[in-house]
């Protein structure tokens, strides 16, 4: 294939990936729509217990409710609970008059969820193919993140990647609807507003630090995005638990307990924070020293990377401070992700400074 062919294929792959993300999103929406009429199968009131004692954490939920010693604690348990619905209906046959119908619906819920994940994987593969061919579609061949369009596409891929990598470990399927919605919005905005044709890099980006710095920033920001989704859902779930408005059906009811959401959010953030530190405070400054002759110069991009770092540092501290745990920390995490987004969108497009590589005039 010629350079131009690669570039054209990249555009098609990204467009195709967006469409598949839309389908994945619809599948997850349908999953939750069906779930509205299927009660959560954990013993009724287990959530109410959790609400009465919201500090129960980690392994506490698993063996008590399911009798299965699940690795990964309650996160795994709540996942298995749902996964088991299709297979082990016997134990629940006596739940009510509509048991047969209910279990059929439960099966659909499970199927739709799996379809959503499968479509997300497919979309991610197309997304990756689009990125790779974008790099091959430039002469000379280069990394596919040299302007705003490419940053958006690469950054969005980072979010899907983190989600899929952690999907099994933390049983994140409940996050699928948010992740796919995020991908659809970002890719569409990138294609509609930010697109520039493939071409060579500006000289300022001729450096292997472009690979190290940007890859680290993308992974760190991707983790923050996934963490923000977990924190947002934690707030929703914790609110329902605290108010006692938790029903037995619907999306909120099927989310893991708030303590589990909190723990997942923490782990993802704890993974992202050192990587962000490396991207913003090690790789960035070293490159800046080579390129501009100063390792830190309070350029707007640097200022906001620093602000992001400080906010997430506050998040980690808040988790260890009485009165800030839980809700306070989750709000801080959301603020942190807002600063990431502002740094990316606001500073690239409206700001001046040395990091203006948007490629848009």
């Amino acid at each position, binding site marked *: 294939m010629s350079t131009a062919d690669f570039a054209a294929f990249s555009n098609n792959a990204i467009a195709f990936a967006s469409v598949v993300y839309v389908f994945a999103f619809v599948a997850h929406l349908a999953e939750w729509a069906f779930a509205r009429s299927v009660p959560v199968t954990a013993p009724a009131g287990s959530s109410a217990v959790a609400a009465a*004692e919201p*500090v*129960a*954490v*980690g*392994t*506490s939920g*698993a*063996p*008590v409710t399911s009798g299965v*010693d699940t690795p*990964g*604690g309650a996160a795994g348990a709540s996942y298995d609970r749902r996964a088991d619905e299709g297979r082990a209906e016997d134990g629940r046959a006596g739940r009510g008059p509509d048991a047969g119908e209910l279990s059929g619906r439960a099966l659909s819920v499970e199927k739709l969820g799996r379809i959503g994940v499968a479509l997300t994987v497919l979309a991610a593969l197309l997304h990756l193919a689009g990125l790779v061919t974008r790099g091959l579609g430039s002469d000379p061949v280069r990394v596919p993140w040299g302007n705003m369009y490419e940053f958006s596409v690469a950054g969005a891929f980072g979010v899907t990647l983190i989600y899929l990598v952690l999907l099994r470990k933390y049983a994140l399927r409940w996050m699928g609807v948010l992740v796919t919605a995020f991908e659809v919005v970002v890719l569409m905005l990138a294609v509609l507003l930010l697109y*520039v*044709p493939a*071409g*060579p*890099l500006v*000289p*300022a980006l*001729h*450096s292997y630090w472009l690979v190290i710095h940007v890859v680290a920033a993308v992974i760190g920001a991707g983790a923050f995005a996934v963490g923000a989704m977990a924190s947002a859902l934690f707030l929703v779930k914790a609110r329902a638990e605290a108010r006692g408005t938790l029903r037995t059906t619907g999306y909120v009811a099927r989310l893991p307990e708030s303590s589990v959401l909190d723990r997942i959010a*923490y*782990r993802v953030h704890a993974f992202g*924070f*050192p990587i962000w*530190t490396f991207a913003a*405070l*090690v790789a960035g*400054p*070293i*490159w800046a020293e*080579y*390129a*501009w*002759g*100063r*390792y830190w110069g*309070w350029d707007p991009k640097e*200022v*906001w990377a620093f*602000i992001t770092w*400080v*906010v997430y*540092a*506050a998040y980690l*501290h*808040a988790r*260890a*401070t*009485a*009165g*800030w*745990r839980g809700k306070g920390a989750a709000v801080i995490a959301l603020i942190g992700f807002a*600063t990431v987004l502002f740094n990316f969108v606001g*500073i690239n497009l409206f*700001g*001046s*400074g040395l990091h203006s590589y948007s*490629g848009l005039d």
Partner: protein
Amino acid sequence: MTAPAAPPSSPPALTPVELGRWAWRQLTSMRTALILLFLLALAAVPGSIVPQRDIDAIAVGRWQDSHPELTPVYEKLGLFSVYDSVWFSSIYILLMISLVGCILPRTRVYWRGMRARPPKAPRNLGRLPESRSFAVDVPPASALSAAREALRSRRYRVDVHEGDAGRGGSVAAERGYLREAGNLLFHVSLLVVLVGFAIGSLWGYKGGVIVVNGQGFSNSLSQYDDFAPGALFGPDDLSPFEFTVDDFRVKFLESGEQAGMPTEFSADLTYTERPGAPEKKYDLAVNHPLSLDGGSVFLVGHGYAPRVTVRDGEGNVAYQGPSIFLPQDSSFASFGVIKVPDALPEQLGFEGLFLPTYGFSMERGPYSRFPDALDPVLSLLPYRGDLGLDTGEPQSVYELDKDKLDVFEKDTGADFRLDIALGQTKQLPNGAGSITFDGVDRWVKLQVSDSPGKRIALGGVLLAITGLLGSLFIRPRRAWVRVREEDGRTVVELAGLDRSAGGDLGDEVDELERRLRERLAAGALPDPDASPVTTGTNPRKE
């Protein structure tokens, strides 16, 4: 930072010493640290919105010109140099004090904890968050030593408490001491980074200079166009290197939708590290600076310097050479002036644009179609009169002082303008002289700077990350095993306790149980009955 104990919310009316102690506790509390972190984040924001003097002095001037009423207010608030301002500094200094006030006591606690023995087993192991209990047919003493080995193999620090005369006993174990060490290392490293940063801003310097192709530069204060020294930097600290810019090359994309984008630029330097040292060559490019002892040279920009010859009204060459024109946009249409103080009978001045690839349209007038010098044209407005160079006041080389200058006029009364193509000579009206466009030189903008302490800062951040990884991913844990005789068999109880949130304690205790059973089986006769008696998991408070 200093953990739980919430400080009192209002100061008790007490002696100065107690008040001081109260204030210190307030300052070093985690709550205060959190608030200071937020303040730091907030305080950093204005510097990314209002132009900053240290970053772009020209932008500051432009902003001040268009906001004359806000300027004095902003000036007072230090908004044009946020990161040196009193309020920004006081936030991070308070934060650092709070940090020190937190590290010191925690180091003391950690030191004691390190040397202490793991705490003895609680009376009822079954009440701990994770516990297992099973019976085996192994003598209690062997079971106890098997427990010790099992815990050691998981890298626990182990302390054995023998019971009376071979009747069992207990093992206390603890691991994950490095978590707190990582935490402390992280916070100390931040201080190291700050020290490195401070060294750089006190003893460092940053200067900018424009050098035309073929010309040289020697590292002394008078050679710089702009120079920003650190507070403790002296001009004698400049190391005496010299260099000449032999050539500068730039390539632009010539076709495609991104035509005009530069793809590559680099400059050939010949340099000597100190007078008398051998000459060396260097290919200077973006991302490829020349690093010398006591300073590095960076290529930060480039532009055009048209070469002209100006003859005055008496026919003599009054000026010859390149003049630096500053690019206005990505098409490299560049603005500049040519001053001819030696022209007779009147001084001459020229102001206008250099267009590397000439284009003309009715809407825009003359403009540049492409950034490379493919069809260069000078479009100048000539002036005559007094350039004002004799007043003694310093003047910018990029501006004409037009107080005592007049334009030439056409017969129609319009200003007389010259469009000169490369190689052309144009006459000024009324025999005032002529100007010849001889050629085009390029110039490079170089930055020479030194930031001592950068290695300290880098080392500090790397240590901080190391500490961070330890403090986030090492799990401090305690585990206990108790062995006792019951009905002729040996009952083994095993329990674990996480000292940090978010661990998988159940997995850990399972693994301990597996290792313990392995050792029990190896150490004693095979025991088919070694099945669990109970498995307990208790909810715990975080």
